[in-house]
């Protein structure tokens, strides 16, 4: 549900940077600690990009796994695969190092004929 306003924002950002050119690709970076779902964004995208300079643009989703670094043993690990507590020493003294990202990384536009 909350992907609708988010998708609208993605469209606004892309159109703003395209300056009227046709947008062919949009690269998004999404951390696993955010609550945004690729399929939902794609679903709304197909509807709201209709009639804009971004219609038909391909969305590329780059997911960033949630990672943590153990402050007890110093090792890094991926939370989804290895759990929240340090899988090496069991410590709960850890720092989240990745997974909160949520941004439009770049867009591709068609060359404009001079």
């Amino acid at each position: 549900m909350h992907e609708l306003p988010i998708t609208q924002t993605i469209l606004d950002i892309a159109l703003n940077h395209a300056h009227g050119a046709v947008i062919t690709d949009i690269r998004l970076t999404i951390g696993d600690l955010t609550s945004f779902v690729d399929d939902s964004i794609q679903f709304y995208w197909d509807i709201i990009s209709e009639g804009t300079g971004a219609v038909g643009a391909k969305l590329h989703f780059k997911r960033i796994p949630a990672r943590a670094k153990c402050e007890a043993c110093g090792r890094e690990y991926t939370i989804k695969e290895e759990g929240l507590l340090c899988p090496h020493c069991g410590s709960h003294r850890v720092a989240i190092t990745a997974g909160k990202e949520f941004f439009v990384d770049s867009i591709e536009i068609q060359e404009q004929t001079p």
Partner: protein
Amino acid sequence: MTHIPVVQNILNANDIIAEVNRNKLESAHVFGLNIMASPGAGKTSLIEHTIRGLSGVRVGIINGDTAGYDGDALRAQNAGATAVHINTGGNCHLEAHMIQDALVYLDLPALDLVIIENVGNLVCPAGWKLGTHHNVLVASIPEGADKPYKYPSMYHGVDVLVINKIDLLPYIPFDMDYFKKGVMALNPKVTVFEVSCQTGQGLDAWYDWVRGKIYR
């Protein structure tokens, strides 16, 4: 094909309005709390107790719900607060622009504290800044000790954790050590209160904390 680097935060538009809300609260010397939790954890009960427990503090409440029911706002009013109800029309969390609209209905110079009761949801509300000074998560014993592990973004994104319904600890298997290890892993700086809105246990420490944050 031309490549255009963008690198723009998608939640930026929300964050900008949250900043406007924050400035509005601060210019009126009002302290703001955003209370989040799963449905049934005790958000409304905690708010009712807080309104009554902070005697002399002038409180405004903004209630967010997905449906038209405004019973929570009535409960806050009965407890002595001014309350505004937001019907999100099915949206699963409150966003900064909804708070911007709701703040118009509160006479901020006549208040000391604004408490926002977010939509009952343990997934998305933490991602959306509202402009309050602190995010508060209400957890409750019957939910189970595994919730930090299952909903890491919520537990990661709050400043204060109120563990409610601790009067049920003798009756419900709840591994507090496992729960707190998950909390500490995600959020080592979080301030924790253990309370029961049923018996009143632990609430004084919570009231003292809130009172200490209020401007005057």
